[in-house]
């Protein structure tokens, strides 16, 4: 049996490597900047967790990977596709935050010369949530979850950090609690391409897993970043900047004002969560999967501000 497993693993690795990359889209959206578009869906076995946008920036000496996907399988596909497009070694794997669809592929990139990079709070978030994510996603992902491990960053960003890929500098910025408590953005200065992680949702309804007010504030700060295009965490692969922020800001503003009105009126959280933000329903996908949650957490946050 052991021999059969080893033989099978050897054969599957040696045979399937080219086909790993084949089904995986990875486009050059600007010179030396690559992006992959995830599906707008919830993670499941059928989509192997491939629901988030991923990216890579290639310098003269090295490559930086931005997020790794929602399973080890997807991470390996991404790695294989990237190796076909870029001959340089991967030096950094940057995680934009702690959510499973962005980090479950990390294991595919673990190698002696690869440094994992994240927000100063990312190790803490992975410690608090990693085990729960591994357990709770088994039901939806089935065997597609096999082999997923939690890989934490060894290089963390307090505020900003510049990494050099060889003739190409990228700027990492750690933000206050907003979408989550460990959001990081990556700006490629040469092409003005911003990887916003889940600080930017397009088409996919924004998800608030940190602070509603923080998210609104950070969205305003983000708009000042001198970029020309953005890769959102979810939605189209690339979008114009900063116009891409408009829909998200409209949603977060509406949700906040609805919740504030409900709290002022004395509504309870369950009633408020059923109606807040509903006028935005038509503009977003997966609205019913996340709006109630955003409203529930937003209510609990905003009621501390009430008189």
């Amino acid at each position: 049996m052991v021999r059969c497993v080893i033989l099978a693993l050897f054969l599957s690795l040696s045979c399937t490597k080219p086909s790993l990359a084949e089904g995986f889209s990875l486009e050059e959206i600007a010179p030396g900047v690559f992006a992959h578009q995830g599906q707008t869906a919830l993670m499941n076995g059928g989509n192997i967790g491939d629901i988030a946008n991923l990216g890579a920036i290639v310098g003269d000496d090295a490559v930086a990977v931005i997020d790794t996907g929602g399973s080890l399988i997807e991470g390996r596909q991404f790695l294989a596709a990237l190796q076909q497009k870029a001959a340089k070694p991967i030096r950094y794997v940057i995680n934009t935050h702690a959510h499973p669809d962005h980090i479950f592929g990390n294991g595919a990139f673990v190698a002696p010369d690869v440094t994992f990079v994240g927000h100063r709070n990312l190790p803490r978030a992975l410690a608090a949530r990693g085990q729960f994510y591994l357990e709770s996603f088994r039901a939806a992902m089935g065997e597609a979850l096999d082999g997923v491990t939690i890989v934490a960053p060894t290089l963390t960003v307090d505020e900003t950090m510049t990494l050099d890929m060889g003739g190409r500098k990228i700027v990492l910025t750690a933000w206050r609690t907003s979408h989550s408590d460990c959001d990081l953005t990556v700006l490629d200065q040469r092409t003005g391409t911003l990887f916003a992680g889940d600080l930017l949702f397009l088409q996919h309804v924004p998800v608030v897993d940190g602070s509603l007010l923080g998210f609104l504030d950070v969205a305003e700060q983000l708009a000042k970043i001198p970029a020309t295009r953005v890769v959102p965490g979810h939605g189209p692969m690339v979008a114009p900047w900063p116009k891409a922020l408009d829909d998200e800001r409209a949603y977060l503003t509406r949700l906040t004002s609805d919740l504030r009105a409900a709290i002022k009126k004395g509504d309870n959280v369950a009633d408020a969560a059923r109606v807040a933000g509903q006028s935005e329903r038509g503009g977003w996908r997966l609205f019913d999967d996340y709006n109630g949650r955003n409203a529930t957490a937003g209510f609990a946050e905003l009621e501390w501000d009430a008189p």
Partner: protein
Amino acid sequence: MTKSCSRRGPGVAAFLVCLGFWSVAVAQTPAPPDPWPDLARDLFQSRPMAMDEAVALEAPTRAEDAAIVPMTLHLKAAGLRQATLVIDQNPMPMAAAFTFGENAGVTFMSTRVRVNSYTNVHVVEETGDGALHAQVKFVKAAGGCSAPAVKNLDEAAAHLGQMKYREFKSVEAGRREAQIMIRHPNNSGMQMDQLTHLYIPAHYIDKVEVRQGGDLIFSMEGGISLSEDPNFRFSYAPNGAKTITVEAHDTKGNVFKQEWPIGEAS
């Protein structure tokens, strides 16, 4: 490549056989057993419970946010003394045990809990004569990246023990409605750090007492199933007292106290 691929057939077949064994093993994993009989024994000494209308539980069929699931206990029995909220499948199922003052007149209690997985939620009400009344509801866990963890750990630590009091117009005659909020991460201690394999230490509110003047409205003994920033909204029968006082204790020995004037309108 061609050479190794020519051997692909038998290799893949062997691989599938191995997978097959694995799948069978997974399929045979039994569903989690119903923990309620053990919980009823441990928490209520297996005393008989009437599943009747003397108590009702308002809970969502699907938890929107695993960390903040609103629950309302409607307490209708005369001679109400205690009410216990149990999240059967949580690591620490006893979420909150409320004890009510003799003439407190509490008719409902809303709070917020964490829900780890698909679970039954029980509310058990005890009256002065020792009779138990119970209701149960099934709650589906939240999907996606929703975790029963603290959302903003920096914020939680910075404001530890801060409290807020709100009053609302009561729809019931002879009752007032109030809300007590306490800033606290209510860290569960059940999360294992995947990197160090150490458990993050628990730190949570384990006792709260709320009084009007000197009279007890309710006290609560709670655990890690209560959401961060424990929150209680309830009705009570006013006794004419001018102030509401709250005393809360946590598992690190911190004591948080606060007092507010009771408003004139009810």
